[in-house]
């Protein structure tokens, strides 16, 4: 069976090898392959030579940068699934044009995150049998692993259904509902992995799941704004129409109004939540909370707050700014950088005050090693390569044919 000759119901090729990749997709695949190749090679070589001693993590800072990168990708993925569900579950027609792109983005961010995790674990392959056979229902990590695995399978099936033009089928609708539920539960349990740890007061918080779901959604909005503003580099309606192969008022409305506003409003919610965390942290006298004071000295904290939150909020604060694709691009990149720092900062804050190591121990200092940094090009390389490939082969701008639209589900 030759995969290149398979077609969907209406005769479109399953993988569109006949079309030529547009320059952006080609560039992404090339850049992704180079960055991913270099990153993975560096990590593999160093892990082979030194094992995990190539990381700067220690018994006091057991989870370091790789876990932060992993959080970044997994939470973004869940947010993207929520955006895709706005269409396929809640019938918000405005979001039809980006649903398929979001599902693909959700799959590849998961793949990038899982790859990084596999390189961080002591025995990644053992996990494949040891976790399913353990059924340790008390462990939030066990639930997190189970839910994200289910999430990946559901997303792949959902993408296949959309790709084979099953937009309107009952199966797609039901599957989308299940996938939506899972993509709320999965980042929620990931929040519990941190939020339930009473012995780590800087993490201990019943709202950690909510914080993870919200910031995941926010980074997903930033991803979508980023990638759709790339589609419109020429800053013209013509580019949108060409990409989606139809002229549609709704499309422009989505790109110029809905997404940037969603970006702005969600960002305000993130800021409100974060301010609450910071004030609680600085005020509290409880052991472990002094890490919040220590965080004020860290550049990561300031990148997060000023460059990642305040500046993008200002950039998206008026209608005129919001409709400008260049501003959208800038704001979304800034937020992504900010939230990336925030993930690492979160990891450090919870472990900075050593647990029970005597008074001669001080704050645990941690900066990622070269090998840990190389996981960044590795993860983003995999992501970019798969995104470029998807853009080229999988018709990501495709959406439901308008005349077949059902009434929005109630």
């Amino acid at each position, binding site marked *: 069976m030759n995969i290149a000759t398979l077609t969907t119901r209406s005769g479109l090729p399953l993988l569109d090898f006949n079309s030529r990749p547009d320059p952006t997709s080609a560039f992404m695949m090339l850049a992704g392959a180079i960055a991913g190749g270099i990153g993975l090679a560096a990590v593999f070589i160093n892990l082979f030579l030194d094992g995990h001693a190539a990381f700067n*993590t220690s*018994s006091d800072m*057991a989870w370091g940068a790789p876990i932060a990168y992993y959080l970044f990708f997994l939470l973004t993925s869940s947010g993207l699934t929520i955006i895709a569900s706005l269409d396929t579950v809640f019938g918000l027609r405005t979001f039809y044009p980006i649903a398929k792109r979001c599902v693909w983005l959700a799959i590849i961010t998961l793949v990038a995150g899982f790859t990084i995790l596999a390189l961080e674990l*002591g025995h990644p392959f053992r996990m494949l049998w*040891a976790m399913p056979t*353990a059924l340790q229902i008390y*462990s*939030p990590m066990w639930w997190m692993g189970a839910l994200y695995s289910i999430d990946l399978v559901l997303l792949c099936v959902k993408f296949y259904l959309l790709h084979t033009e099953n937009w309107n089928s009952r199966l797609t609708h039901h599957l989308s509902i299940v996938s939506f539920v899972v993509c709320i539960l999965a980042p929620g349990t990931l929040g519990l992995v941190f939020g339930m740890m009473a012995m780590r007061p800087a993490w201990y918080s019943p709202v950690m799941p909510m914080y993870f779901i919200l910031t995941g959604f926010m980074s997903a909005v930033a991803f979508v704004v980023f990638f759709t503003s790339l589609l419109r580099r020429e800053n013209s309606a013509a580019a949108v129409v060409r990409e989606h192969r139809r002229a549609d008022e709704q499309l422009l409305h989505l790109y110029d109004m809905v997404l940037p506003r969603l970006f702005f409003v969600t960002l305000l919610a993130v800021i409100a939540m974060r301010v609450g965390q910071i004030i609680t942290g600085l005020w509290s006298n409880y052991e472990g909370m002094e890490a919040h004071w220590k965080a004020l000295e860290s550049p990561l904290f300031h990148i997060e707050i000023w460059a990642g939150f305040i500046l993008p909020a200002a950039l998206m604060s008026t209608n005129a700014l919001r409709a400008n694709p260049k501003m959208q691009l800038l704001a979304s990149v800034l937020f992504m950088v900010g939230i990336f720092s925030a993930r690492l900062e979160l990891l450090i804050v919870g472990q900075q005050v050593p647990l029970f190591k005597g008074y001669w121990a001080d704050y645990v200092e941690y900066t990622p090693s070269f090998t840990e940094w190389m996981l960044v090009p590795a993860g983003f390389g995999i992501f970019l390569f798969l995104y470029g490939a998807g853009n080229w082969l999988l018709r990501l701008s495709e959406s439901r044919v308008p005349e077949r639209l059902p009434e929005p589900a109630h």
Partner: protein
Amino acid sequence: MARWGMVIDLEKCTGCQACTTACQMENNRLPGENWQDVLFYNEGEYPSGKLTWLPRPCMHCENPSCVAVCPTKATYKTEDGAVLINWERCIGCKYCMIACPYGVRFYAEEKQKTQPDIRKVYPGDSGKMWNPPYRMPEHKRNLKWGVGVQPKGVVSKCNFCYHRISQAPKGTPDLDPNDPKLRDFTPACVVTCAPTARYFGDLDNPKSKVRQLIAEKRGVRLQDQTGNRPQVYYLAGEAATIPETRSVRRKQS
């Protein structure tokens, strides 16, 4: 079934670290990765300042958070009260290191604090992290108990010398190192402690010395607010104190 526990008398403990060294030898620990350690605390300021210390094994908690978080059930509680790690199941996710309030766990694959890296000087074979020149006899090594030279990619911690205590005759109330018949079944740190500050016995046996000491000398558990309920008790008596265990103190302005 016994429920093993330890009592450490801080009035007798001199902070000499003999227990740490004995544990290092018994369990082939890497330098700095002390399953058993003595923690030091400064209390007060000159001229009334003083130095206090606290020997710290794994607490083998009654309600161990490390067991609850382990996604593979590699960390488990035995019927006789020890908390062990099955090195054949551990995936090295390090969640248990996050969740243990007492900071007693180690991941072997980290940068060594002392150079040269002893693991490179004595490289390991057949899945061993390293090959120390003096090491526990092979027949005592038990991966399911986390006993012996550690494999790569897993977490380790004090196992109450499970290779010793599990061989003790059933029904023994106390493993007293001064009794030649019981000495080999007693944890190495207890055997070696010169001022006999450590006691090891069955917390469920009404006749045991450890129970009597906890009752009569007001044994306390550390960080009881965590709810982990350690099976290691400390006696402060009149001459010693339980140090304020906070490690980082923010300056008050």
